[in-house]
């Protein structure tokens, strides 16, 4: 299967001057996925691909995971921007979509805590800090071993030989999950979930299977399911730090920061180290302690680099890139462009395909006024995985440069994301809602979607998105209440502040609005360019 890369096709639709980076090897996951009959998403993807006349099948994306903090779906464009009127001449959905899409998993901490290393081997373990929660390697383990695709083939063969082998299903679930995370691949997550369900159909109370399933649910934004799954895993294996970490992660996304903190504290003795530090960084950020978040991200990176003690160190460049990217993201969110720039660039040296760093660096460049570099970085990122976040930002930058056709092409890709699969719509729900709100599509239906997104992830950002939807519908008092509720969590976030300021201005409270808008603007690269433009316009500077 040697389908042309999405990058090339995409380029042919949208630009001719350059090609994005070639994508990696042809996807080969060892034949049909186990239980592929149940894999609706795969079928849908192929259908879309066929509809465009493009070859079906996917391309392995040398992709990335998303740094903490990326949970703030950045497609948010501030103003009620008119829909670009110029339609790109396109005969079908962008080819990019033909390959499995992409999950910007989770934002927040998409590190799926690998339970996995213990998954097969038994529930009764309390591993020490080192790599208990560490990130799995990418193509090959840093100390040898088969590439992930070949490991998947190994365990796939075993389950075909002995379908009652739940441990092999569990390995498959863990490996597909790893692949999904590193390659930003929702289809891999669908396969992972299918494999985990097979394992649990055989031994429904086996803690490692329950924990892996919980991690997959978390990654695909079923946070309530992840919480329930992690709790189920802990019933018979209460000392498993991996399951408890997943529980903490889920609670955090469910807006229960104090409960999440308690779970993290509970594993600190046995599973301290970079993977816990980076979780606590996100906890600090969403509770309004951006400086602490930055310090914790720095500590996590030091730990992973061996600066604190060798037991926590890793030689895996993918893992190190993750921590560099996380540091960059927390620096960016706190307005520290210089630190962010250095960290993102370091991550890209370690892992050239690191998506989160490319996006983060694009934001830093855009904030510094270098739209050309930002667009180039986003084009490269989109060639790796055309996440709605990337395409929306790309469209906005083109809009700023009055490049209507290019902007429209990017926006078109965003709109297609939701049609790809139910899972894509779920995982990207906030990004897509914000995109609609900021690109002329605000409606009661979008408000309903915002509320649905909030119901599944009732945190500060969820409240803010609901408030922003109300604002776009002119229901300013309700919008203000939602915005206040978002800020009551303690979070200090540039976009939430910008939204609050805009709502305050709309309510006629110019002084409060100006103060909030100034606060947002002071966070520099944390505020995306069109948000910045609208904030400045509201302050009368444009």
């Amino acid at each position, binding site marked *: 299967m040697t389908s042309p890369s999405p990058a090339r096709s995409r380029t042919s639709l949208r630009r001719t001057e350059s090609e994005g980076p070639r994508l990696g090897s042809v996807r080969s996951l060892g034949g049909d996925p186990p239980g592929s009959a149940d894999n609706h998403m795969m079928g849908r993807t192929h259908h879309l691909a066929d509809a465009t006349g493009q070859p079906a099948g996917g391309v392995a994306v040398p992709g990335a995971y998303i740094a903490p903090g990326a949970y703030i779906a950045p497609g948010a464009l501030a103003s009620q921007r008119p829909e670009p009127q110029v339609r790109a001449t396109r005969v079908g959905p962008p080819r990019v979509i033909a390959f499995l899409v992409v999950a910007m998993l989770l934002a927040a901490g998409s590190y799926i805590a*690998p339970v*996995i*290393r*213990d*998954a*097969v*081997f*038994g*529930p*009764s*373990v*309390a*591993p*020490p800090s*080192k*790599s*208990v929660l*560490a990130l*799995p*390697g990418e193509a090959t*383990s*840093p*100390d*040898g*071993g*088969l590439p992930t695709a070949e*490991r998947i083939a*190994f*365990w796939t*063969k*075993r389950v075909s*030989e*002995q379908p*009652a*082998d*739940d*441990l092999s299903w569990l*390995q498959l679930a*863990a*490996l597909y999950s*790893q692949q999904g995370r590193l390659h930003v691949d929702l289809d891999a997550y669908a396969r992972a979930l299918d494999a985990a369900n097979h394992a649990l159909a*055989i*031994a*429904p*109370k*086996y*803690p490692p*299977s329950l924990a892996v399933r919980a991690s997959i649910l978390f990654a695909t934004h079923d946070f309530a399911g992840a919480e329930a799954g992690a709790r189920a895993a802990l*019933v*018979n*294996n209460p*000392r498993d730090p991996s399951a408890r970490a997943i529980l903490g992660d889920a609670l955090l996304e469910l807006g229960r920061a104090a409960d999440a903190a308690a779970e993290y504290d509970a594993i600190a003795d046995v599973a301290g180290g970079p993977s816990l530090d980076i979780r606590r960084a996100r906890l600090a950020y969403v509770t309004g302690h951006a400086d602490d978040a930055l310090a914790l991200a720095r500590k996590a990176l030091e730990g992973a680099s061996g600066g604190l003690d*060798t037991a926590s160190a890793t030689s895996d460049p993918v893992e190190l890139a993750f921590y560099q990217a996380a540091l960059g993201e927390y620096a960016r969110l706190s307005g520290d462009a210089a630190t962010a720039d250095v960290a993102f660039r370091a991550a890209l040296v370690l892992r050239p395909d690191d998506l989160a760093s490319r996006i983060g660096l694009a934001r830093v460049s855009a904030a510094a006024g270098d739209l050309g570099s930002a667009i180039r970085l986003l084009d490269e990122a989109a060639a790796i995985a055309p996440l709605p976040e990337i395409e929306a930002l790309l469209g906005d930058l083109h809009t700023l440069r009055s490049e209507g056709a290019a902007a429209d092409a990017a926006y078109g890709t965003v709109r297609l994301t939701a049609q790809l699969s139910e899972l894509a719509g779920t995982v990207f729900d906030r990004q897509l809602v914000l995109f609609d709100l900021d690109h002329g599509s605000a409606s009661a239906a979008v408000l309903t979607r915002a509320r649905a997104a909030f119901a599944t992830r009732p945190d500060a950002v969820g409240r803010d998105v609901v408030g922003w939807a109300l604002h776009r519908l002119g229901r300013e008092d309700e919008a203000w209440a939602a915005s206040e509720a978002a800020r009551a969590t303690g979070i200090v976030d540039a976009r939430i502040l910008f939204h609050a300021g805009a709502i305050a201005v709309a309510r006629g409270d110019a002084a409060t609005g100006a103060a909030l808008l100034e606060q947002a603007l002071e966070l520099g690269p944390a505020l995306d360019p069109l948000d910045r433009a609208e904030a400045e316009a509201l302050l009368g500077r444009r």
Partner: protein
Amino acid sequence: MRTRTKVAAVGAAIAVLTVGVAPLISGAADHLEAPLAKAHHDLDITDIYAFDGANSKNTVLVIDVNPFAGTATNTGTKFSTDGEYRFNVDTDGDYAADDIYTVTFGSNAPDGKQSLTLWKNGSAVVSGKTGNASIGGGAKVYAGLRDDPFFFDLVSFRAWRDPDGDGAFTYTGSTTFAGIDTFRGANVSAIVLEIPDSWLGSSANFWGSTLLGGNVIDRMGKPALATVFVNPFGGDSDKDAYNQTAPEDDVTAWGGLFTAVENVFYGAGSPYPAAITGLLLPDVLHLDVANLGKSTGTGFTGGAGGILNGRTLAEDVIDLELIVVTGGLAGTPVVATDGVGANDVAFPGSFPYLAPAH
């Protein structure tokens, strides 16, 4: 009687299988266990073996680590560069090591291999690199990725012991095993040491251990003892402590627990439990050097004292254990075999004895 006793020795380990909430895949052999071992796959001992060399004047000692090396998530194929791999040999019968053969590894060379050095009591014997036989100082050593010689239908065993996976062993699953070797196609990181019989004397005790930063990460003598007997009803709180106990202290530290576990199967009034404990502990492989390799797993022709004599690659320790643990000493066993009687690939019969990696 000799046969019967031998079964008991091996078999007690299987109590493991039945009683213990031991880590699963480890099931019978020590394929993963205590927290420390589990956190360091490259120091996690799966099995040890001791058998006669192709040259019968030599003895082969094997330590396997790293279950499902390179295929399970988060496993690699390299040896620890910080750790030590120890072949401990007691030659005077006091269960304290008289000779320690240690193998240490360097980092990857450009060709992907690691340098290695074999030490005897702190003095270098021979150096080489992984994937090759290194010969010198009277010894021959090999380290590298090989086929896992262990064979066992762990899947069927688990389904029988704990059908819903909750850790409470009910033994309500099918007693008819599928007979599929769970370790087929699996590799381990193996260290194979061949030394003259004269270095061991006529009789010795052997156990393997791994260390990191001076702490014992894992140790193993007889198959699966820690797996079966330590924390037999769940958890792992004692497993590191067990691994860190010196064999000479085993009886004092763990004898009571072992007998208590055996009582579950044989009843408190049975003479078997105490006898079995006496055979199992200290947790070492006894080597009747002249008779090594003559225990095939089908006849109980072990060496002096009727105890397990070394362990050959082909020996079906699981069947022996199943027979003993499921009532075979007192009548008909509930499960007499797992249906797997041999490794999935043939052993080459010459150094390094384990089959090539898959």
